[in-house]
């Protein structure tokens, strides 16, 4: 029997995802570990292609058939039993139940996950009628209520429109409403605002925040913008090339970043109160291809503090604070130090 830390609703352990392609193997996710405490929110942050979406999709088994997934994805059911999602049969009843009632997702591109040929009502009501046993009338009331909740005006009328009749921001809201319609316990939001303008982003983010409070959701927020997670989540996991390089409480990550990549990333964000002509420090080079992973530390080619050890040793996960972990050989000795202090 698998065990989980008390208070966690989801634990992902040593998740590895490869895509077998004609051109070779894509090492999309290489041993990712994170946990989601019940009622809290975590942020997964990283640059394009680092495996954020793939990690999220594997939690609900939404990956294409070409994917090879290994590792554990432990989920604590309402009754307290533990299910390993990674072991559930593909497209079986169990995983569909989890997707339908327990874990909801909000996608980056709302149009691709809303069906263009069904009205918003039909799509929203499906889960309610199917899983929650509502009548059509009840479902309708609830739909209107949800659409109003996510700030769509004239909800009574708009509920019967098709997604293409909605503007970009409204679609994203409808997506959120749809995710909430299932009364999920976990909400996974994959770059919910990347396609939106700043003013809309602000609207949608505060909506998500409200909903999380209101429904007591546990949330995984995926984004490449550190500015967004700074205000939205309790814990942050920084990913680079399929690995989590650093994780910890939000404040700790921002104020006491350990990994050279985290520090580089934080420094390279342009600030609203910058100065004309000032140079933003940047990380040299670009992210290497996921086809041929470099040996040793994946970040070493761009790292300003690399050592010879980085060349052949895959860095261990080292605890440097009460909930703060970093995978970097610079901190090799500090585990003992932390343990001694604690």
């Amino acid at each position, binding site marked *: 029997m698998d065990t989980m830390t008390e208070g966690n609703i989801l634990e992902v352990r040593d998740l590895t995802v490869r895509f077998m392609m*004609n051109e070779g193997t894509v090492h999309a996710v290489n041993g990712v570990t994170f946990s989601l405490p019940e009622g809290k929110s975590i942020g997964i942050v990283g640059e394009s292609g680092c495996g954020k979406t793939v990690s999220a999709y594997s939690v609900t088994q939404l990956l294409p058939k070409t994917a090879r997934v290994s590792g554990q994805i432990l989920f604590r059911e309402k009754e307290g039993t533990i299910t390993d999602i990674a072991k559930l049969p593909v497209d079986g009843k169990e995983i569909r139940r989890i997707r339908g009632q327990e874990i909801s997702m909000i996608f980056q591109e709302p149009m691709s996950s809303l069906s263009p040929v069904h009205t918003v009502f039909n799509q929203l009501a499906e889960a309610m009628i199917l899983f929650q046993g509502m009548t059509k009338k009840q479902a309708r009331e609830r739909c209107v209520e949800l659409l109003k909740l996510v700030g769509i005006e004239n909800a009574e009328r708009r509920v019967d429109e098709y997604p293409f009749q909605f503007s970009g921001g409204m679609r994203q809201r409808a997506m959120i409403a749809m995710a909430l319609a299932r009364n999920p316990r976990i909400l996974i939001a994959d770059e919910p605002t990347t396609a939106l303008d700043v003013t809309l982003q602000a609207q949608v983010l505060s909506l998500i925040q409200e909903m999380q409070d209101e429904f007591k959701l546990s949330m995984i927020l995926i984004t490449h913008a550190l500015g967004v997670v700074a205000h939205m989540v309790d814990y942050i996991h920084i990913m680079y090339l399929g690995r989590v390089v650093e994780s910890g409480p939000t404040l700790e990550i921002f104020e006491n970043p350990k990994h050279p990549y985290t520090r580089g990333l934080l420094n390279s964000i342009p600030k609203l109160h910058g100065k004309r002509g000032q*140079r933003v*420090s*940047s*990380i*040299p*080079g*670009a992210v*290497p*291809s996921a086809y*041929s992973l*470099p040996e040793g530390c994946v970040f*070493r*080619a*761009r790292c*300003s503090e*690399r050592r*010879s050890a*980085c*060349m052949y040793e895959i860095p261990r996960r080292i605890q440097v604070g009460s909930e703060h972990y970093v995978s970097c050989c610079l901190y090799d000795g500090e585990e003992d130090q932390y343990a001694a202090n604690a």
Partner: protein
Amino acid sequence: MDQGLSSQQATQNVPLPKPPSADDDSTALGKTEEKVFYATQWQLMWWKFRKHKVAMVSAVVIIFMYICAIFAPFIAPYAPTERHRGFLYVPPQKVRFWDENGFSLRPFVYPIEQEIDIMTMQRKYIEDTSKRLPVKFFVRGSSYKLLGLFECDIHLFGVEDGKVFLFGTDNMGRDLFTRVLYGAQISMSIGLVGVFLSLLLGLVFGGISGYYGGAVDNAIQRIIEVLRSFPTIPLWMALGAALPPELSPVGVYMGITIILSLIGWTALGRQVRGKVLALKNEDFVIAARLAGTSEPRIIMTHLIPSFMSHIIASLTLSIPSMILAETSLSFLGIGLRPPVVSWGVMLQQAQNVNTLMMAPWLLIPGVFVVVYVLAFNFLGDGLRDAADPYGV
């Protein structure tokens, strides 16, 4: 992919400690990766195409078929119109390497003799197994012009004092094998010529339509719509019937190709228009315009290369429909006519049920039509997959 730290990047940032040389990933690039960086569009396409095994096999089949067609007079043992008296409706003969008398390295056939069944008044052919007729290679026979140039009378194979009919003969005693080969010349070239004409028409009209837009575009689009709304077979029949009957066989051939391509270009025209429309406002085309590059040169260096691979792929896919059209027309008796030999013309003779019952081998040209069409479809599929080496 590449992470070469350029001098400038390095100086802008925190100074990098000199890495141990083996750690410099930019020098440790794999040979294959390096090769990909310098690969042109066509190289990338070739690498991608090579992975498509069925398409590769199809390509080989097609090339083989064309070589056979080009060298038809040499490969065929007889002339296409040569009648062999007393050998009407001979079934395909077996080429043997051994019989009860043992094995022979040289393949041989048995001579055949005609016998009339008095009861049914039907011909029967009896193999005379007492005698072996060895198949000889590079034998002299009827003379022909190889590639239309060289007078020559050597044939790939043949038998002396006897006959060899690999695919049998038809109602007039003509060798079917020979005729399939000669028919290939016509049938397999009509597709190419027709497609080439369609390509020209499609490129010109589609290109103009997409590039200039406005009223011209409108007019061309309407014409295409009208052309496409005709049911094809009756249209072909009408046009085919309109060809003057006194036209020489070559004239009919040209006429048919032109008819086929006049109707066939519309699909291609649409495609070209779509591509041009999309490309016209592509950033790199605007950049070229801002750079001062002239319009004709933009068309030649940016537009055409960008959609050529797609066009070639879809052309390949449209060749089968050309040959099918030719076959159908000839089969219906309104396309090519004897004495021209094409697969369609040959199949026309296999039209009635009686002949079919009696001489099913007359359907052999149909087998070749099927093989040819399938091979082109597979090839086209492979090309289409490889056509955009930059896509995901």
